[in-house]
């Protein structure tokens, strides 16, 4: 193994340890070191800058994954509700979230929304706040509302932390998070341009490490990873393979287990973009460091958010951003991977699929739960999908490329009609109630 490859390995191992840290030991240690508070937040997006400016550690909460057994959480949710709220409750009731001094519940769906009220009742001694985001994107309407909501959050954190959060502190945090987003963009660029250098599972772990690390430390970690991975590739490790570049859509909240991400790449895909860690990459531009920082955060949300299911699409361009994303990152297909019973992802899917069909971009779809343990069916489905795209690509000529786009379209249709017959081409989730 080259030196650089060993460096990569060390970084990724550190990230993987953080991934497995469901007891939040890293947060416990940070608090012991700093004597400051930590605030958890559920997917997708919260303005972590405000928490950071309060001197607190923002902690990304992503359920229990495949790492905890649900014993008490199931008693709180019916079988037809997704997994993440039950594992979150389980984590809370078993004391694994004790390191958190509060939790933010961003507006993403009715499950997280109602979970905020459950939290108020189950953990009355802890700070809990639902963070509404505007679905009106006019600065003079939704912007005014959202800025005031952010003010409310700031005031709460001032009270909790016992110290004022001034504009300079907020600006300094914005600078830190801008730097973090820029580092993430460098990583995403690498994935886009040379996905063999930064495989999906590693990238995922590196980004997820930001759930538990202070922002500057995370930014450094991303840059270290990118540099080491590039060096390792230059040294001959991480060779390019013949795989199909794909985009993953629908996994923005409850996370697929790590083995599932590995399965997709082993099945012959390069995941060049995904929405799994969307919260960290939510804003597509730097937040302004001029003027009123809360206004800057509000404006950034209104005008530079990544389009996703939990946010209203005011134009009639549903699905266009996904098509653009596919093109931008040179992907050749889309894998819809949504948690079972996830309303936002699953209600959005037919609209996105329609847009992909129109654009001649092939897609396939399956559902998962965060604690999924069997991947064979998904592996076969992803493998077939990747192979079929590669096969068409090999035809090469212009005529063939036309045919290719036609066949992509047909494939989408074929999957649709096989779904109609109740057949399952390839995979399904553990729930066994999946569509193609």
């Amino acid at each position, binding site marked *: 193994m080259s030196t650089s490859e060993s460096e990569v390995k060390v970084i990724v191992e550190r990230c993987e340890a953080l991934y497995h840290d469901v007891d939040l030991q890293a947060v416990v240690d940070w608090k012991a070191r700093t004597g400051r508070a930590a605030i958890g937040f559920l997917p997708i997006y919260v303005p972590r800058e405000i928490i950071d400016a309060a001197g607190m550690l923002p902690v990304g909460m992503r359920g229990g994954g495949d790492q905890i057994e649900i014993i008490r959480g199931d008693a709180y949710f019916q079988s037809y509700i997704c997994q993440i709220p039950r594992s979150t409750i389980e984590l809370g009731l078993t004391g694994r979230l004790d390191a958190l001094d509060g939790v933010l519940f961003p507006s993403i769906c009715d499950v997280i929304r109602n979970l905020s009220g459950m939290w108020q009742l189950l953990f009355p001694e802890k700070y809990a706040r639902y963070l*509404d985001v505007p679905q009106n994107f006019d600065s003079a309407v939704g912007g005014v509302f959202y800025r005031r909501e952010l003010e409310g959050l700031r005031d709460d954190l001032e009270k909790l932390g016992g110290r004022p959060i001034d504009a300079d502190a907020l600006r300094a945090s914005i600078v830190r998070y801008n730097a973090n987003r820029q580092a993430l963009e460098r990583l995403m660029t690498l994935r886009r341009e040379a996905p063999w250098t930064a495989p999906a599972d590693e990238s995922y772990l590196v980004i997820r490490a930001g759930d538990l690390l202070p922002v500057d430390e995370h930014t450094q970690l991303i840059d270290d990873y990118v540099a080491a991975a590039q060096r390792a590739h230059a040294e001959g490790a991480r060779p390019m393979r013949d795989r199909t570049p794909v985009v993953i859509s629908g996994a923005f909240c409850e996370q697929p287990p790590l083995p599932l991400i590995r399965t997709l790449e082993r099945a012959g895909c390069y995941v060049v973009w995904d929405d799994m860690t969307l919260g960290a990459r939510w804003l597509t531009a730097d937040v302004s460091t001029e003027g009123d920082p809360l206004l800057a955060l509000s404006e950034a949300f209104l005008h530079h958010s990544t389009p996703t299911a939990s946010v209203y699409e005011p134009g009639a361009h549903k699905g266009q951003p996904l098509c653009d994303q596919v093109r931008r990152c040179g992907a050749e297909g889309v894998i819809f991977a949504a948690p079972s019973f996830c309303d936002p992802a699953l209600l*959005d899917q037919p609209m996105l699929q329609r847009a992909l069909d129109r654009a001649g971009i092939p897609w396939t779809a399956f559902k998962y739960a965060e604690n999924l343990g069997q991947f064979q069916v998904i592996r076969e489905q992803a493998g077939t999908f990747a192979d079929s795209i590669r096969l068409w690509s090999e035809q090469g000529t212009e005529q063939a490329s036309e045919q290719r786009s036609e066949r992509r379209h047909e494939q989408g249709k074929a999957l649709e009609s096989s779904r109609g017959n109740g057949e399952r081409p390839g995979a399904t989730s553990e729930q066994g109630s999946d569509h193609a």
Partner: protein
Amino acid sequence: MSDSSDTEKAVAAHAGSGKDDSMEKQKAMTADHFRALTRAREEGKKVVYTFVPGNLTELMHAFDVLPVYPEINALQSAMRQRSAQFIGEAERSGHSEDVCTYVKCDLGMIKNGNIGPTGEKLPPPDLLLLSYTGCFTFMKWFELLRQEYDCPVVMLHTPYQSEGRVTDNMRQYMVDQLRNEVIPAFERLTGKTYDEDRLRECLRKSARAEDDMVAVLESAKHRPSPIDAYFGGVYYIGPMFTAFRGTDAAVDYYSTLRREIDARVAQGLGPITPEGEMGPERYRLVVEGPPNWTSFREFWRMFAEEGAVVVASSYTKVGGVYDLGFRHDPEHPLETLADYCLGCYTNRSLPQRIDLLEQYMNDYSADGLLINSVKSCNSFSAGQLLILRQIEARTGLAGGFIETDLVDPRYFSAANVKNRIESYLQMIDQKRQQRRQSLGGSGGSPPPPGSTPLFSPGAEGQP
């Protein structure tokens, strides 16, 4: 919310009232509305699709447009036994089996010609008014409908009452949206200028009808309750929650209904059910969650046969929680519309919902809380198991839990539901017995409920 079923006829038989009774009026109002919809094109009327929670009916009347409520279409499709086919078609065309069946039923209905409950085609919308109140699915629903129709969409985002109160910021945000987005959209649609006096007039009528409706719902505090506030309740809320709030017809309907119910109270009568007069009232229940529509009558019968009457329900508050005192206020027309939307039941925090249910348990002298948890609806369902525990702990009364769906018959297992209801009622009997014993009674089998005030739980609170 009326259809031509036997259920309706049964409910129509209120207090021996004749042809002019409330249900006849409701039927006539509904028929008129659908006739107007059918003629909308030729008469140059604009059609607006919108949702029940947080609807802006008065504003729509002020602009003279005709509302259509896709949720109502869906439940009516279910009552006409069409929903299974519609849902099936939507699923075959790519919609997940995991998501709300109202949406799929509506999409299936559109694919089948969008035929309304009167057998005539509903006109397509000229505007989709996305009143995004209390339910995430609404947003996706109209994004989906936008793909079916070539018409504008206007979003009215109602923030969630997460802290259990309406803040000035929330109210102002809504007023700003009404002023800057919704009203201009109506002006563009109709070519008319916003007429605040007309809106005030409608709001005044709303408040009058709301007073009467609350009196009707609160009549269930009597023993026996003259109404069933869930199965019967869905008929009573129909005009208020849909196209008629703010009209003379609604004012007239609710005053008539109130008179009929007052007469039942005076005569000491219980509710009318699909099978006729209900027998002796044996159990008084509060119900949380929407009903099942595909087997609505059968579902109701399971309660009525056991002498179980629903004295209060949360479902009859989805289109507005009026019994806590809210009335549309003509003096503050836009603010009142904002407060109305913000106050709808599913826009209330979970602690608020629990407080309200607890209040119902006490105010209505209920024997227990039964939750009908519907698979479709995360807005209602997520958290209901905690609601159940909290209510049991706070009141010491029995809680029950059944699972069905709104309009998907695959999730209504009659035998299972019946079993659960029966065991739940047995649990109430046991609790009564325990209570009697703890009060120093002699044990043995429970007395015929309602017959011995002392042993009839909640008798103390009897009006």
